[in-house]
């Protein structure tokens, strides 16, 4: 373990995680809106926003799947020291983090059970760009319609078709994040 694994967590965890959770809650409750978060400095290639989401939500009780490039010693050590989440395969994971390409196929993630739809995965998708354009979003949390730059539409539409089952998504880019719960309906732009 390198010494740099020991840095990059919250300086004041109770307060910083409270502010960050509020941003994630607002993002999840208002799909398409983009929020800025701060407090984490995880090792590359993990983005600060993805690091914040993991610090706020993941802990030793949540199996974590590191997909593709983020599954590297630096990130593993950082997660082990700051979060303590057990690393797991995609099928068992409560949280999965990686680029959209590295997370494929997304159909392998937990979608919950018909009587417990909450037992589903949350995907933290690292994106190159995150803007309010792209597919048209409607559904709970959206007044009329919103737009969000998503890596694709079909997979999210298929996920929505499973409602109330399905995984939920937090999209991260640098220090910004947005969210897309399974309840959101999508139409191509």
């Amino acid at each position, binding site marked *: 373990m390198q010494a740099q694994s020991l840095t990059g967590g919250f300086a004041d965890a109770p307060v910083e995680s409270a502010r960050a959770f509020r941003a994630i809650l607002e993002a999840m409750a208002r799909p398409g809106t983009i929020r800025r978060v701060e407090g984490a400095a995880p090792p590359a290639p993990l983005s600060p926003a993805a690091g914040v989401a993991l610090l706020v939500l993941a802990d030793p009780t949540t199996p974590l799947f590191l997909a593709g490039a983020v599954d590297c010693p630096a990130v593993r050590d950082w997660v082990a020291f700051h979060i303590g989440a057990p690393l797991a395969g995609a099928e068992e994971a409560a949280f999965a983090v990686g680029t959209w390409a590295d997370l494929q196929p997304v159909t392998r993630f937990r979608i919950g059970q018909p009587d417990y*739809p*909450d037992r589903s995965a949350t995907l933290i998708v690292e994106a190159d760009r995150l803007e309010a354009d792209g597919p048209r979003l409607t*559904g*709970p949390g959206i007044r009329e319609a919103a737009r969000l730059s998503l890596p694709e539409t079909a997979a999210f539409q298929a996920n929505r078709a499973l409602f109330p089952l399905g995984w939920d998504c937090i999209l991260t880019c640098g220090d910004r994040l947005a969210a897309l719960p399974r*309840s959101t309906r999508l139409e191509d732009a």
Partner: protein
Amino acid sequence: MSDYNFAYLDEQTKRMIRRAILKGVAVPGYQVPFASREMPMPYGWGTGGVQVTAACLTPEDRLKVIDQGADDTTNAVSIRKFFQRTAGVAVTERTTEATVIQTRHRIPEQPLTEGQILVYQVPIPEPLRFLEPRETETRKMHELEEYGLMHVKLYEDIARHGQIATSYAYPVMVEGRYVMDPSPIPKFDNPKLSDNPAIQLFGAGREQRIYAVPPYTQVVSLDFEDHPFVASKADHDCDLCGAADSYLDEVITDDRGGRMFVCSDTDYCASRRAEGHVGRLGTDERAA
């Protein structure tokens, strides 16, 4: 500075509650089980709401707590003091100034706005519980969207009383999927649940459930075509502020049948009186 962790709960517990809240937001109306903690107040005093509030509060928040609409009742005062002491947050009695509002059994009269969070205290989160006591069965009924029993209950009300006799905790359908207990708010408040700009979170401590209604979500009170839902209230105006559109409490004033009706929402009533509205038994308070 207090010796408590920010907002009382430890970080591990808050992460667990926060995960449950996010899943609740993602599946509107579905009751997410969570590992409710013992809180330094008895069950029935809002332990679920307190845990949800604790998980959502930031130091910048301004907290309002109401009990049946009132800011100055025991339950509201003690929870407000609890968070002043353990989180050091600012508090207010004004609905418009609050960013987080914890409520027992009312939705404020003042329309809520984006950026506000309304946290409900819920005693029995399962709307089907008094029709079917077994959790295994009610869970299956939600899974299969089998809500016929609830309609039979409402129908029997009509057959027996000529109208739907449920006046509080009136069941609602969220986004056409889950039947949800809106907590024991009067059915007068039910229309405010739907299409609300604020985030609405529900916490049931003893029953260990969290659920949510995201902003701009469709919430429909269950009814029949020939017996449509009616948001009823006492057929009076407020005796202090004269409001005709707010939910009223009946107050017995003597032992000879004297009574008065006053707004249950104390902030709404006080703001109206400050603006010079006067009811039947009120006095003009603008000068005071």
